[in-house]
Structures are given as C-alpha cells and as structure tokens.
C-alpha cells in the first residue's frame, strides 16, 4: 500500500491562508490504513481547523468528507456538491489522489494534507516500512524476493558495496544490508547462480515521464500508436 504521513498542522493552516470554507477530503484506502488520511483523520483535521479559527474569532467553516478512493473518478464524483461549497480543499489522499481530485475540480485550490512517503507494508501495529520504488522492471525474481532498488541504500543491482557492517547497511546500522540478505536468501534456496549473473543497467524511462499502464484488454481504446 501507499504510506503517507499527516503534515504538521501549522503547515496546513498556513497553506490555507485566509480561506474560510474548507473541505477536508479523506481517502478510505491506503492512507486510512496507515492512519494518515482516512475518515477519522479527516474529521479530526476539520475540527482542528475550526478550533484554530475560533481562537482567532474568524468566520470559518471546515467540514470533512471521505470517499473510498481518491484515485478513481467514480468516487471523486461523489464530492462534487461538497467541493462546490468550498473555497479550498485539503486532500488527505496520497499524492496521486490529491492530483486526481485537483484535476477533477480545477476551479478550486486543492492543498495536500499529507506527505506521501512510500509503497510499503504494515510491519507491525503503527509501523510501516518501504518495500518498492515502483521501478517498473521488477528484479525480485533474481534477488530472492528482496528489492535491491529499494532496500539497498544505493540501489545497487550487482551486489554489496564495501561498507556493509556486520550484515547491516553502512548508511543505517538499524537496517539489514540488502545484499547480505539477498545472498543469504538465495543461498538458502540454492539459487546463488542468480547473483553471479551481471545485472544490466536500470532503464530510467520511468523517471523521464509519468508512466502509463494499459491493460491488454483495453489496448485499442487507449493506444497512442
């Protein structure tokens, strides 16, 4: 899932400037699971904004509305009336959701209420860790199911750097060295031949333009030739 963190309150308040009719839009999927932008967090932020405005005796109204996913037009559609009544929207969805909302309602300023951090997993209650940089050319088959792009601080594809410290990463002694882990996993599965093969250069086309994924069944409809 996509993991995000709520922005500090002061940052959100300052972005809003003098706007006085604010819709806080929550998203019921990833950001709800990581407790950053679901229904509860949206309601909470709206109340915080109201309280702060109250203290300044400002004419101000913040309300909250949460849809199942902001990365889907079908759900964003449901916010139309609420957005129409607002002079600003704070979206608590991930960066993709925020943009999609802003695109659908281009006349209203939309502000991010979270910082989108990574694609990761729920490691434990209240702990999420990164696992994938969505590089669009998954190497996991060669690396024993451990991502070198994400889990190695240098994203090295051909083995460890010289800095591994007793199995930990040179950058962070709290973290396993990805390549120590990859080696161990492959050894355990008798697949060490995998690390002997040189990895080719990464294709960075992904960072030069936003990617598109078209499902094979929809090729005709969306193909650009």
């Amino acid at each position, binding site marked *: 899932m996509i993991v995000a963190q709520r922005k500090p309150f002061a940052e959100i308040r300052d972005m809003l400037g003098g706007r006085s009719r604010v819709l806080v839009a929550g998203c019921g999927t990833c950001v709800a699971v990581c407790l950053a932008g679901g229904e509860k967090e949206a309601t909470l932020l709206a109340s915080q904004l109201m309280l702060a405005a109250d203290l300044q005796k400002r004419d101000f109204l913040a309300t909250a509305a949460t849809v199942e996913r902001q990365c889907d037009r079908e759900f964003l559609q449901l916010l139309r009336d609420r957005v129409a009544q607002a002079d600003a929207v704070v979206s608590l969805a991930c960066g993709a959701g925020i943009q999609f909302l802003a695109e659908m309602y281009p006349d209203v300023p939309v502000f991010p209420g979270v910082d989108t951090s990574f694609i990761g997993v729920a490691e434990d209650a209240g702990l999420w860790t990164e696992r994938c940089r969505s590089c669009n050319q998954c190497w996991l088959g060669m690396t024993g199911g451990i991502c070198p792009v994400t889990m190695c*601080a*240098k*994203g*090295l*594809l*051909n*083995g*460890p*750097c*010289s*800095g*591994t*410290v*007793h*199995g*930990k990463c*040179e*950058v*962070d*002694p709290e973290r396993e060295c990805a*390549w*120590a882990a*990859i*080696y*161990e996993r492959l*050894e355990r599965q008798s697949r*060490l031949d995998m*690390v*002997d093969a*040189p*990895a*080719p*250069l*990464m294709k*960075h086309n992904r960072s030069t333009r936003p990617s598109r994924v078209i499902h094979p069944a929809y090729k005709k409809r969306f193909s650009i030739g």
Partner: protein
Amino acid sequence: MADSICERVRSGSFEVVGRLDPPRNGNLSQLVALAASWKGKIGSVLVTDNASARLGGSALLTAERLGREGIEPILTVSCRDGNRIALGSTVLGAVAASLRTLLCVSGDHPAFGDHQDAKPVYDMDSVQLIAMVRNMEQGRDASGNELEPLPRFCLAAAACASADPLAPQLSKARKKVRAGVDIFVTLPVFRVDQLEPFLNGLGEISVKVIAGVLLPRYEEVVSYKDGSIPGTFIPHDLVEQWRAMDPGAFSSASADHVKRLVADLRSWGKVAGVCISAPGREDEILGIL
C-alpha cells in the same frame, strides 16, 4: 611515459600508491608539490573523487595536472555523483588527459559526507561502470551508441577484505573480475591476516591485489566504532591501545604501526603493492616508506 601500474604489478614489482584528495580551495600547488616530493618512492598517486562524499576539487583535473608533472595518477571514478552520461564523459576526459588508470567505485553514500541531503545518483554500480569502460574501449557507450574505440585502460576496483559477511563481497569481486578489472585495491587493513580470507576466497585469478592501509587521524580513532569509517575495520585491541595514548604518542605509534605493516606486506609476497591513505596526515607518508 613509463609502464603503467598494471604493467608494473604484472611484472611482479611491488607498487606503492599514495592517496591524495583534491583540495577544496581550487589551488593544486601544494598537492602537486607533495606528489613531486614522492617521486622515486611512490609509483602512483590515487586521486580521490569527492572522497567520503565530501566536496573536493575535480579529480579529473587534478589527475591531469599530476600527469603533466610526470607523476602517474590513478583517477577515481565514483558512481555516486553522476549518471551514465556524466561517467562516460569522465572516461572520455580521462583519455583526453592521457590518463591510463581508473579506480571504479560505487562511492560512499552521501549520508557520510558534508552534503547529506544530496541526491545519491548510483545510476550505475561499480560492476556496470567497469563493463561500460571496457565497452567504450570496444567502441560502444553505455547505451550501445557507437564511438571511436578508446585505448585500453588499466582498471582498478575496490574490495573490502574485512567485509562481514564476506561471501557476498567475494561474489561481487568475482563479477568485477568477469567485467574486466585488472587490479583490486582493498579498503584499508591494519594487519596482514585481515587479507587472508579474502585472498583465499578469491582463489587463483589473474587480477592482482593491492592492499589498502590507513594512517588514521586521532579523532577518527577516538570516535571509532565499526561502521564509522565506511569499509574500514580497525581491530578493536588496536583501537583500545591507540585510544589510551595522548595525541602525540598516538601519532608516532600509528605511523610506526603502518610502517611495519607496509614492510610486512612487502615481504609477505601475496599482494602486489600497498595503497597508503593518510587524509590530513599526507606529509607523513614518505616517512612510512
């Protein structure tokens, strides 16, 4: 120019390399004077590329200047700060500057340096960099475009002999050999036996190994813990010994230690040379020999 370091180590002579970091003040005269004073004692000068992820002068320019002064440089090329275009261009620059020896490294992570928020590039890793240089010699750049074939370089790569675990390090070292590296320069060791498992693990290969040694600074030893100097592991009993000394006593004890180590490595016969690093203590390097 005389034989390159590759030819010398292949012919069995013991190579002494001294490391110099291009200064941060844009003035090479001190560095050049120091390197010139090493002539006859030191075979080649390793020019670092923003060592330890700290901003330094241009490695390419410094190496070129040393070459003009008749000193043989080894140009470090680090994957940390440039993508395949920048690195390819550095290689072409090296040819233009008549440099013949490159040390291809991934590079310490910016987290260690003085620009901790810098973007770590690592578009290539050291294995891919070695392969790119070999391909450029054959007339292909990293993306397969044609170029005029380059003259053959003497290629060195880094390896950590004291890595824990060692097996993944060895497996990567073998990849570097297959990619076409000529020489390994190990990260600093402090005792001859630190090299043994690595050399045994490598087995019979044509690639020569130059042992890195380090004359550390007092503060580095005082604050030392495993991992505080990337890839460099000082035996704990030695750290204790050195820490118990005052700076003056440490200075001569550490210099004596490295001096003995260099002599031992020379007579040991299993390494092709030494690469002496002494950041901040470069003027003591001659005394060690």
